[in-house]
């Protein structure tokens, strides 16, 4: 019988300030998600016909990119969380490689999204076309800005791994960047089915 009791950490990973930002982001995006869902109820035909214009494959690729990028970030954090003594340098090198992969995926997401926006704007669609496109553009562009910021944060976190800056005792910085990146992932997890799939 396993008598081990796992003690819960008193605070979430990373700097507590990032969690305050995350709570604000959750409320902001939450209001937009609910706004979209209830606006759709009053104009189902317009929302369904407008949704057909979207490229579901592009949204699918975006999701794969973000989910996989998040996995890479988890691997980076795990690499340094247990590093002590002479292992620190090697752990930071491993974390750096995982972060490099996640940054590449972040950039791939941004490029894919720019291509999607370019196709949408090329059709003459803008914020005032109808309510569906207003929400689509607001949500995806706002999210795009968050991915951009997340990628910049990961870039800076990676710079510190180059100096073997994280260890088992000091890994709050990498955790702070990681939870922000996972927030971006969490928001997209809802955005994708809501905007691209549900009809």
């Amino acid at each position, binding site marked *: 019988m396993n008598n081990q009791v796992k003690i819960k950490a008193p605070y979430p990973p990373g700097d507590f300030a990032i969690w305050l930002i995350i709570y604000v982001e959750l409320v902001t995006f939450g209001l937009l998600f609910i706004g979209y869902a209830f606006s759709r109820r009053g104009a189902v035909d317009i929302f369904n016909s407008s949704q057909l214009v979207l490229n579901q494959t592009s949204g699918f690729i975006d999701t794969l990119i973000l989910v996989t990028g998040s996995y890479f970030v988890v691997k980076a954090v795990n690499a340094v969380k247990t590093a002590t003594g002479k292992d620190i340098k090697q752990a930071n090198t491993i974390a750096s490689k995982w972060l490099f992969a996640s940054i590449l995926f972040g950039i791939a997401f941004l490029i894919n999204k720019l291509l999607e926006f370019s196709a949408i704007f090329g059709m003459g669609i803008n914020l005032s076309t109808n309510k569906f496109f207003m929400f689509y553009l607001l949500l995806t562009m706002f999210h795009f800005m968050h991915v951009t910021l997340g990628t910049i944060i990961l870039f800076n976190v990676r710079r510190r791994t180059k100096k073997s800056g994280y260890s088992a005792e000091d890994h709050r910085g990498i955790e702070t960047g990681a*939870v922000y990146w996972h927030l971006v992932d969490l928001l997209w997890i809802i955005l994708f089915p809501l905007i691209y799939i549900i009809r």
Partner: protein
Amino acid sequence: MKKTAEIVWIVLIVFTVFAYLLGKLKLVSTFMVGVLLVTTFIKGELIIDYFMGLKDVSLKYRLIPTVWLVLIISLIAISYYT
């Protein structure tokens, strides 16, 4: 050797492929939207618990994003089904 991150990643990918196929094969029905919302909740909770690392943190910090997720998914369902 524990492979939690790998298992979570695979589940996320499988549910994402499921969502995409629903849309691509035009299988979105009122019933399947319910299934899709349940899988979306599971995906979100996996990210909260295992990627954000809140599973092993004081319950109140785990509950904040979890309650948010339940609320958003429930309101999307209410807007769709009522």
